[in-house]
């Protein structure tokens, strides 16, 4: 438990969500252990005593999330909740409760219903019932979802569709400035070249691609999946695996489904499989780079009959430059990504509405990684142009 707490505290820092001294992580088996001392511990221990959880995490967040989350919390007028529209929130978080005070009663009330909450002007609290990883994932999800919601709302504010209170321009400009610095600093690229000669080569390439994707800062470690096809086997990251820790979590899936030990493979396995079947792809990278997701959610047709159901019912042929944007829920079924995405992904990549970006390479991950970075950069530039944040 202690090693996991340290590991995920460090991840919060390495992913630029928190300052090193900030995460306060408690883990419980029969006794509670904390990663550091804090005067907030007594309140959090009251929370632990009232809930069936085994992990609790409380931390302030770094910029740009700090200003964004505080802004959204300040203006969360409906039932003291924030309701982003991205896939992460719709599927897993539902909404994000906001408390204006840090006390055990309000925290317990929120965690009774949801996996995490925002304490206005202070930070985020999340919990887990199985592992500190759950608290980390929810924390990361809340940051991501709030970022996407704010920047999406800001676009509609700038185009006059809605009127945001206060001074959102300053917050948006700061977020764009921070993002610009790190995306322009991405220099690394995958070194393993294809075509892959063996299963081991394929697996090594997947591990490298996952690590670089996270290291670049384009995506958070938990969100996304990676695969490569070698002969008649698709090697794919397991469900819920961290892209920067894929060693030992890659499933070999025969294309004829003749063994099912890959039942633990990513929820997007069927989508990957269909992409390989319908295209020349040899590798697939999928992540949730922020501005690709945000761009996918910007549509100016305010009178569209499908408004509000864009994620499943959008009937338009939408593009960001050469990149198609398609609707689709996570997983299978008529409106699942496995159905909507593969026919659209004929070129180098496609964005799923509110969800993330899929890119391909015809030989190895160099091309797929370049496409991921290039498309995200283009999405970022397009966002700045459309909002005037140049």
């Amino acid at each position: 438990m202690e090693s996991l707490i340290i590991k995920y505290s460090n991840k919060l820092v390495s992913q630029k969500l928190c300052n090193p001294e900030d995460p306060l992580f408690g883990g419980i088996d029969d006794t509670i252990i904390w990663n550091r001392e804090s005067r907030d511990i007594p309140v959090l221990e009251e929370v632990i005593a009232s809930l069936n959880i085994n992990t609790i995490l409380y931390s302030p967040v770094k910029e740009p999330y700090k200003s964004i989350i505080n802004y959204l919390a300040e203006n969360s007028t409906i039932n003291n909740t924030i309701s982003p529209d991205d896939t992460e929130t719709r599927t897993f978080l539902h909404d994000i409760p906001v408390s204006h005070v840090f006390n055990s009663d309000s925290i317990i009330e929120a965690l009774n219903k949801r996996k995490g909450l925002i304490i206005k002007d202070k930070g985020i609290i999340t919990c887990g019932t199985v592992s500190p990883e759950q608290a980390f994932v929810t924390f990361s999800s809340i940051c991501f979802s709030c970022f996407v919601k704010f920047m999406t709302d800001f676009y509609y504010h700038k185009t006059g569709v809605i009127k945001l209170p206060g001074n959102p321009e300053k917050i948006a400009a700061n977020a764009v400035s921070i993002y610009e610095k790190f995306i322009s600093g991405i220099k690394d690229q995958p070194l393993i070249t294809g075509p892959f000669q063996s299963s081991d080569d394929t697996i090594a390439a997947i591990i490298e691609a996952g690590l670089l994707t996270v290291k670049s800062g384009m995506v958070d470690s938990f969100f996304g999946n990676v695969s490569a096809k070698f002969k008649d086997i698709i090697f794919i990251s397991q469900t819920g695996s961290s892209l920067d820790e894929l060693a030992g979590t890659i499933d070999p899936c025969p294309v004829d489904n003749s063994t099912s030990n890959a039942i633990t493979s990513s929820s997007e396995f069927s989508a990957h499989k269909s992409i390989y079947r319908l295209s020349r792809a040899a590798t697939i990278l999928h992540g949730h780079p922020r501005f690709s997701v945000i761009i996918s959610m910007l549509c100016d047709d305010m009178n569209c009959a499908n408004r509000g159901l864009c994620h499943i019912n959008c009937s338009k042929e939408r593009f960001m430059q050469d990149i198609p944007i398609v609707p689709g829920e996570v997983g299978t079924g008529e409106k699942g990504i496995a159905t909507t995405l593969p026919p659209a992904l004929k070129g180098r990549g496609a964005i799923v509405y509110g969800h993330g970006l899929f890119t391909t390479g015809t030989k190895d991950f160099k091309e797929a990684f370049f496409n991921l970075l290039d498309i995200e950069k283009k999405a970022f530039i397009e966002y700045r142009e459309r909002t005037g944040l140049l």
Partner: protein
Amino acid sequence: MGKIYGWTGKILKIDLNSGTYSIISPDKNIYIKYIGGRGLGLYYMLSSAHLHWQNPEMPLMFMTGPLTGTESPSSGIISITTMSPLTGTIGDATAGGKFATELKKAGWDGIIITGKAPELSIITIENSNVKIYSALHLKGKSTKETLALTNNGGSKAVIGPAAENGVLFSTIDFDNEDTAGRNGTGLVMADKNLKCIHVTGTKEVPVKDPEELKKAKEDILRLASASPVLMGELGIAEYGTGTFYDLISSRRMMPTYNFRSTFFPGTEKLNAYTYKQKYNPIKSGCSGCHILCKRTDSLNRAIPEYEAMSHFTALTGNRDIETVMEANRICSEAGMDTTSAASTIACYMEINGIPPGKVEILKLLNDITSSTGEGELLKSGSRKYAALKGRPELSMSVKGLEIPAYDPRGAYGMALAYATSTRGACHLRAFPLSHEILRKPVATDRFTFSGKARIIKIAEDLNAAIDSITACRFIFFAATMEEYAKALIAVTGINFTGQDFLLSGERTCYTERIINYTKGFTSTDDDLPERFFTEAGTSGEGIEIPPISRKDFLEARTRYYKIRGLAPEGSPTKEKIKELKIEWNL
């Protein structure tokens, strides 16, 4: 009681001694506190905790939940509660199908059956019309024959010849669609001279807020679609639970040769894909469920669940897939638990020095069913058989319930969960398979006890709550109590939270502990067979399967007792009983 939603507010109490019935109208607070299903059954079990399972006053209960019969997905499980003839513990089991839905639509939240009919009988329930008939013409009939010889329509719970012949691991079969498999509940039904319960319901279940229920349903189905284990092309919706066969084999934790090893070479020829190719299965499933995890072949034989697939191959050394199909059919028609039956045969093989694969599985199953030949002894399960033969250590069971097809040396949370389970070795009580193998909600290290005591305790509470809502365990690979709380609020109008469910589940688990305590169960019984601490599993492909550290196991169990609020010897405490507001004086 004022207007209630979700529940019908009525439980049918049938006394087979007199052939009469009455209606119990539980207080609304009992529903809120115990919810339904396993929890509600436990509540009515407390006053009978001191009775032997063969005492005519021992209740046999069938309970539904508040979501049963509504649009809430995968919420039609029936929960059976009594005392187990096999283990002597609290005896409970769940089953899918349509029985719970019919019962609820007939206007009943549950049935409590006491007494013993003067002759083999059948109960029919058509809405509020309850009758008891002679079933002498069904004596000795298989479950399949019994279903065919009774009237059509509705849903039927039946026992087979195994129960009538005293098999301790007898099941209750529901329309040949699913069985209440574990703990020998079928034998309690037989002891009451009850062959069949036939329920037909035509009423609507009142829902407080249908629009909110629709939204909750959408949330649940969205998560289900996102789950590779459930709806992926290799998932349960495609292959049934047989999809676990390759996975468990690849993790080197498939119980082999009566748990002497953990890897059975050649599983790729015995896996779910092979069944699909050979038998071209037809999908089916429970009322109101979109997962459709059941399969039958063209002869209407059920495709085996994972446990039967594994135990009738690896555990016994059999490599003939048709033998597995037939073994599964015999167990289904006889009405006996595949896991206990296969494990008892494996125990018999080891004790008698019979090499793997060299046993006539089908003959032994028929002997057990008819209580003839070797079956006379084997019908009592592996614990009694091994003890009788002077080799008690070769019964691979906990509290007398045979261990399912997940070797505990390959998943330490599972090891602890088998030991602490209140009904004996059960993988479903805490279901650590979810995080230790299937990575949900996140992956945990399967080879450590670190943190597992609290994880198991919380999971036991959660799954007790799921059994009380009477939702399917599988849907919780995807959804959580957050989504089901929303459904329950919509159906009942009561402001439940996920944590309310966990508290109710905790109360259920603790009540079971109390009942077992009254039967003499202590920490000595919360243990695994010695083999797991002294013999290694089958390492390979970079996976080491050492024996479980006895010291680590005992330390984890001690932590579990502390977290569960039990005394060091595993007994309940007055303080915890008071805290959980359980109606019991220690």
